[in-house]
């Protein structure tokens, strides 16, 4: 099942919610708030949420977007679930490395690798 909202695409892969972004730049604060609201709703709707956020096609990411990822990560953990990130291009990976958030998040090279052992197909 695939659900299209204005900013993200969410696909349920046998219990793992795969999230992809519609926009290549995740900078605009209003858009980030909208993404955050949608993701929080998704995480809160699941008993122990497993979410994979893929950054395929994403070119720019601001610190406000990082803030949303941190919030989602904390919320999934609190609810006994897990958040994984994948498909991060090198320039954006550098943002994670500079902020040392690569230590906080579980980051995989591809969606396929992230889904291994995550209970999804």
């Amino acid at each position, binding site marked *: 099942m695939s659900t299209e909202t204005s900013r993200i695409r969410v696909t349920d892969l046998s219990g793992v919610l795969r999230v992809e972004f519609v926009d290549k730049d995740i900078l605009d604060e209003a858009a980030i708030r909208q993404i955050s609201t949608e993701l929080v709703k998704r995480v809160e709707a699941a008993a122990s949420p497993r979410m994979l956020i893929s950054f395929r096609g994403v070119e*720019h990411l601001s610190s*406000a977007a990082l803030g949303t990822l*941190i919030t989602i990560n904390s919320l999934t953990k609190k609810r006994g679930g897990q958040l994984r990130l994948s498909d991060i291009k090198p*320039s954006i990976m550098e*943002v994670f490395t*500079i902020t*040392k958030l690569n*230590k906080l998040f579980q980051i995989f090279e591809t969606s396929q690798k992230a889904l291994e052992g995550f209970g999804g197909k």
Partner: protein
Amino acid sequence: MTSAPQPVAEGSVRLHENNKEIESIQLLIEGSLSQFGYPDAAMFAIRLSLEEAMMNGFRHGNLADPSKFVEVRWRIDSNSANFHVIDEGEGFDPEAVPDPTLDENLEIPSGRGLMLIRAYMSDARYHDPGNHLEMTFRKVAK
């Protein structure tokens, strides 16, 4: 012997928090950077730093007051790109911002804008009273 003056692109604008205005300035600056031969990595660094600087100005400086503006000034030549981002707030002490990379702060969702600017630009400093950020990207030696 006198040499010909170096070409330069400069400008200034007063912005309200409006995505279209912000995007058009980013595109204008990107166009100038491209004209002066800045590589993709430099354009990424400058775009991110400008975005973070403007957002800090709107959020923390102007406290999201829609009537207030953030002024952006730029001067770009083939060696360096210099920017001033000035908000209408009272300023702040940049040294008082907690280090977001410490283990105990990693899960705090805010406070990373300034550190990204410092990491990506060659030089970034606040002028007193702390509402005026000046940042420079040097093309050759970062």
